């Protein structure tokens, strides 16, 4: 089970099973793929198995559109078309399904993507968890986008578009029945506009984009550092986090750096372009709290965190999902 949580076990599964069987090991370093022969088309696929399927700030339908739109955007593309596959568990109320599908349609309209193909399968009761959705998005590469791991170099700056851990925090409150906790909404949102603005303004000065979903900011940056073969150092105190999310983390014994985000991006930007990048991001409603949190420091391949006490520690992927403490 923990193989699906975005940590060490997921990484091992991808490297040892999928990359080995399917080849094209290099493309595992990106959230979406350029199609060989059709170099201007980006494609990405993602499956959604979130529980509970409705949560503060969204539901599985919205997430299924947003997740794929964002993966395409993080590769410098703009999703234009999307396909959806549903796996429904027998007994799912039709009203629930209608609510999820309406939410998908509304989110797709907002993101400017058109649903072009779909499929539905029903499995026996007990063989699924209500509703599973797979989506695949396609779209053109944006002019000016020149994202590449190879372009990253020491001195580049790490920018995050806003507070981290909002989605993970919201899911935790939803799962634990935390009526007493401060309300936290998932940040679930389509990042295509934010990414496009940034790429239009900064062009090739934007070296890489990632959306830190499962495994959170820390896992995304560990992956970037490894994929690029460069060390990244993050200043813990600079990472924005909502007070409510910080409170939830203290209560449950979790680390906000590893909590999922569904509406934030991380950008690696050339130092000279940082001011422009931050201005552009902050002008967009989804990037108001954009801030630089660290930089690429040298050859290597590790992520380092400088804590407020002045201690520098190396961070790694977690083995699997973070679980609330018991004591």
């Amino acid at each position: 089970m923990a193989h699906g949580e975005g940590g060490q076990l997921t990484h091992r599964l991808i490297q040892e099973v999928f990359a080995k069987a399917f080849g094209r090991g290099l493309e595992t370093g990106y959230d979406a793929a350029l199609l060989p022969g059709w170099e201007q088309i980006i494609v990405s696929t993602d499956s959604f198995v979130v529980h509970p399927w409705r949560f503060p700030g969204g539901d599985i339908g919205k997430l299924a559109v947003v997740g794929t739109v964002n993966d395409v955007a993080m590769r410098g593309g703009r999703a234009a078309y999307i396909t959806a596959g549903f796996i429904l568990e027998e007994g799912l109320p039709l009203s629930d399904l209608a609510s999820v599908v309406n939410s998908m349609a509304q989110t797709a309209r907002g993101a400017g993507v058109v649903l072009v193909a779909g499929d539905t399968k029903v499995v026996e009761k007990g063989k699924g968890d209500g509703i599973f959705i797979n989506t695949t998005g396609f779209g053109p590469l944006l002019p000016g986008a020149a994202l590449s791991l190879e372009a990253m170099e020491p001195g580049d700056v790490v920018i995050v578009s806003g507070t981290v851990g909002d989605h993970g925090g919201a899911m935790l409150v939803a799962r634990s029945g935390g009526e007493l906790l401060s309300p936290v909404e998932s940040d679930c949102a389509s990042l295509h506009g934010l990414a496009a603005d940034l790429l239009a303004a900064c062009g090739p000065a934007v070296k890489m984009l990632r959306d830190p979903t499962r495994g959170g900011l820390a896992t995304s940056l560990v992956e970037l550092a490894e994929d690029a073969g460069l060390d990244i150092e993050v200043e813990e105190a600079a990472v924005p986090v909502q007070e409510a999310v910080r409170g939830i983390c203290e209560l449950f014994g979790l680390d906000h750096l590893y909590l999922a985000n569904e509406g934030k991006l991380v950008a690696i930007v050339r130092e000279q372009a940082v001011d422009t990048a931050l201005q552009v991001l902050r002008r967009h409603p989804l990037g108001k709290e954009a801030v630089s949190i660290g930089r690429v420091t040298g050859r290597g391949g590790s992520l380092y965190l400088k804590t407020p006490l002045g201690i520098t520690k190396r961070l790694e992927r977690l083995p699997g999902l973070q679980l609330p403490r018991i004591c």
Partner: protein
Amino acid sequence: MPEILEAFQDAKLSRDLLTMVRKLAAAYREKHGRPMALMEVCGTHTMALARSGIREAVAGEVRLVSGPGCPVCVTSQDDIHRMQVLAAQREAIVCTFGDMMRVPGREGSLQDTRARGGDVRVIYNPVEAVAIAAANPNRPVVFFGIGFETTIPTVAAALVEAERQQITNFYLFTAFKLVTPVLHYLLTLGEVRLDGLLLPGHVSVILGEGDFTFLADQYRVPSVISGFLPVDMLGGIALLLQMGIRGEAQVKNAYPRVVRYEGNPTAKGLVSRYFVPADTKWRGIGIIPGSGLALKPQWEHRDCRYRWPHLWQLEEDTEIAGCRCGEILRGVITPHQCPRFATDCTPVDPVGPCMVSSEGTCAAYYQHLRLAGHREKG
């Protein structure tokens, strides 16, 4: 309230406190010829000390010994085995906290039991198990009750809910642990020198400062109840060093924003309504008299012991072969002294529970101290 909490996250205050701790630690060493040895009793402290960098920052100056405060880690192998046997019989639904799923048992973990067809479900809150029982009226639903004084009232709340809704198929397996009996045990045993105790903030919210005064009165050990932010922990360590230098032994409450002298009487009342103290077996320690809880006789219709007595006739088997979690839990060795640490025992492939749990000492060292090449000195 937010402004108050902000002060506890103040980076400058933390760094100033760290400087103060270092000065006091040097004065202690000067006086006693060795660093002060402090046990952090709670697994959350173990993780927070490692994560914040405090453990590294004071290495060699203060000796921080991790204690038996990780609920998953101290759960005995036999109790895990009982739950696995029960789940494997396919009659009951077993509900447990997530960390427990991956602890290796005699025949794999509860996760393996589930993969082989047993119905084992991860829940975040004991009341969820009551809801599962309500949704599955034809099957017994068992909650694997682990945890310390902090968790036990939430289980009592689940029992209140089951009684109120008259849900007859909800059962409890009691493997709870109590903090004060294990402190008595460790201090009487004297296996590890302890010059002071950093007491668990969360447990103290329930128990209150008053329940810990025996540490000063009976054992003459300076003790401080502390919260979990760097400012809290450094402040607590500074108070312990001051007492150590002066040769004083008191129990101080350095977490007064949530801990009262009398604790939480409502939670205590709820616990005593359902439970009585009982002997229980701790991993790596054995049976400590009165260190656990059993359901009172009037709640025997909720008690696994009455419904499935055969689980207590299983052969008992103490520990995982070659695993030194027991010594880690008693503070006798640090993870770096275990030859399996970070070699064949890792969070992905754990050998023992201390590497599995988010409150486990080995997991804390692995995640935060392994790569720094850090070695505990002193």
